[in-house]
């Protein structure tokens, strides 16, 4: 029993992180980030490749997407071309991924340290979020939630396909973040589980500090609370969107890195994991961080227990959780008109 609870909480912590990413992106950009799952896969593959000393192909993917994003940017600024804009675009979309590629090459060759590999993995995957936003969502930032959702499905399928092209159909697994393990009474705590708790806690504290105490964090919150108000004080919707996507990609990648030592990850595994974070976010109404966290732990626990007692129906049971919640919400929530701007 205790073991199952521990397993559930470990997974729940990861789902909570994913849920936060979804809530953040939705609040700021109204995008329901279905491709969150692909960031998990990319994070997992990148980390696994680095730990085995090979160059992660996500570095190439980041470069390719960066170049596409650069072209999209050029087309959109063609009427207001200036050296400053051009240099900025080149730095962000071409030079940055190239430098990251270089760093990835060096890391693959020389780095055997876990924290360094973790950092490099984030460095590779986070910009992918930025480029996806630039290529897909920024040009349609004013579209309705439904259109954005349909685009999300498209991005998810495209990225999953790219995952298959770039990584192949083989699964990947990485060594645990630490090998230490100890027992508390009947409970055996692995270093990996501990790493999940510590990193999840650090990330939550970090996000809290970012949103509560930095100007850019507050600007992101302001955009989420009142988009028109934010624009009127000069906060660019585009900047907020980019920040939200970078954060979500980083969160997805960290989740992937935390999972890949525990289970084998395939090119399409991220989606299912992401969906569980999505359930947590839905229970939280795509708006509340504490509710999302609690729901995530509940999802993790239900998953752990159902995989023990009725493993064939594990996913069914987990996803059925959402039905009563949706039913309740549909009764409790007043009708809202979709925001237009």
């Amino acid at each position, binding site marked *: 029993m205790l073991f199952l609870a521990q397993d559930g909480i470990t997974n729940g912590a990861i789902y909570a992180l994913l849920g936060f990413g979804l809530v953040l992106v939705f609040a700021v950009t109204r995008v329901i980030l279905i491709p969150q799952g692909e960031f998990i896969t990319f994070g997992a593959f990148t980390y696994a490749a680095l730990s085995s000393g090979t160059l992660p192909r996500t570095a190439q993917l980041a470069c390719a997407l960066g170049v596409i994003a650069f072209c999209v940017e050029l087309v959109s600024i063609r*009427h*207001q071309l200036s050296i400053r804009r051009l240099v900025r675009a080149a730095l962000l979309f071409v030079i940055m991924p190239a430098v990251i590629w270089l760093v990835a090459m060096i890391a693959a060759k020389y780095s055997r340290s876990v924290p360094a590999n973790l950092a490099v993995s984030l460095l590779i995957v986070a910009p992918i979020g930025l480029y996806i936003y630039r290529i897909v969502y920024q040009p349609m930032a004013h579209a309705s939630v439904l259109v954005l959702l349909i685009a999300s499905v498209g991005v998810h399928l495209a990225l999953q396909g790219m995952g298959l092209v770039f990584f192949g159909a083989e699964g990947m697994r990485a060594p645990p973040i630490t090998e230490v393990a100890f027992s508390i009474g009947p409970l055996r705590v692995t270093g990996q589980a501990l790493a999940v708790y510590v990193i999840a806690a650090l990330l939550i504290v970090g996000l809290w500090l970012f949103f509560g105490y930095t*100007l850019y964090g*507050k*600007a992101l*919150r*302001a955009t989420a*609370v*009142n988009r*028109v*108000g*934010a*624009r*009127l*004080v*000069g*906060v*660019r919707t585009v900047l907020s969107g980019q920040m939200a996507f970078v954060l979500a990609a980083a969160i997805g990648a960290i989740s992937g890195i935390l999972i890949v030592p525990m289970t084998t990850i395939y090119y399409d595994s991220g989606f299912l994991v992401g969906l569980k974070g999505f359930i947590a976010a839905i229970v939280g109404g795509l708006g509340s961080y504490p509710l999302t966290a609690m729901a995530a732990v509940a999802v993790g626990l239900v998953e752990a227990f159902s995989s023990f007692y009725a493993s064939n129906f594990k996913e069914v049971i987990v996803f059925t959780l959402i039905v009563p919640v949706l039913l309740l919400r549909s009764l409790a929530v007043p009708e809202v008109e979709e925001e237009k701007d």
Partner: protein
Amino acid sequence: MTEKLLSLDEVSVSYGKVEAVRTVSLDVAAGEIVTIVGANGAGKTTLLSATMGILPFRGRIRFDGRDLGRLDIEDRVGCGLSLVPEHRELFASMTVEDNLLLGAFRSSKASTAVAFERVYALFPRLKERRLQLAGTLSGGEQQMLAMGRALMGRPRLLMLDEPSLGLAPRIVADIFKIIGDLRQAGIAVLLVEQNAQAALRIANRAYVMELGEIVMKGPAETVSKDPRVVASYLGFEPEVAA
């Protein structure tokens, strides 16, 4: 006349096929208060929205000699243009202080500190409430916060849309006094008001808008004595209690 800060040249704004503003020309000089009076639906708010870049328009809008046509809202804010909209658009779930801080989003740290002092001096009430959530403030305080937030960015022209709407008469008097103070501080104000009497009293110049067009303009004093204006906007309006 002094240098024009804002000038609108034959500006038209349409909502689909309906033309809400028709070939309006208007200007505001540095440091003066200009008011636009007119009935509900005359196109005043639409005109301010187009000037701020929220709505697309035809015609030409220049600010400080610069064509605003291609600039988006955020760039217009950077030029020194600021709008306090009718609905105020505050960050309701954030504190008063954070709302003000975001008003200075594009400013340096040093100038933000100075702006905080100035805004708190202008609105001591906001300083008392600085840790309260904006959504919990009274209507008058919210209006002060909206104005304070706009002033944090140190604009050269402040556009106010119905600042007295729904406020108690005593608070309206306070707000209008502060608008007068802004002129002293060298900030130009473009004021849209249904409370024509109060607006005409503090303004230098006035425009009267009807059905999307400017039907009269001139010094505020002259406009306020015009028989048509008296009949339509002042005659039946009760004396502002203050």
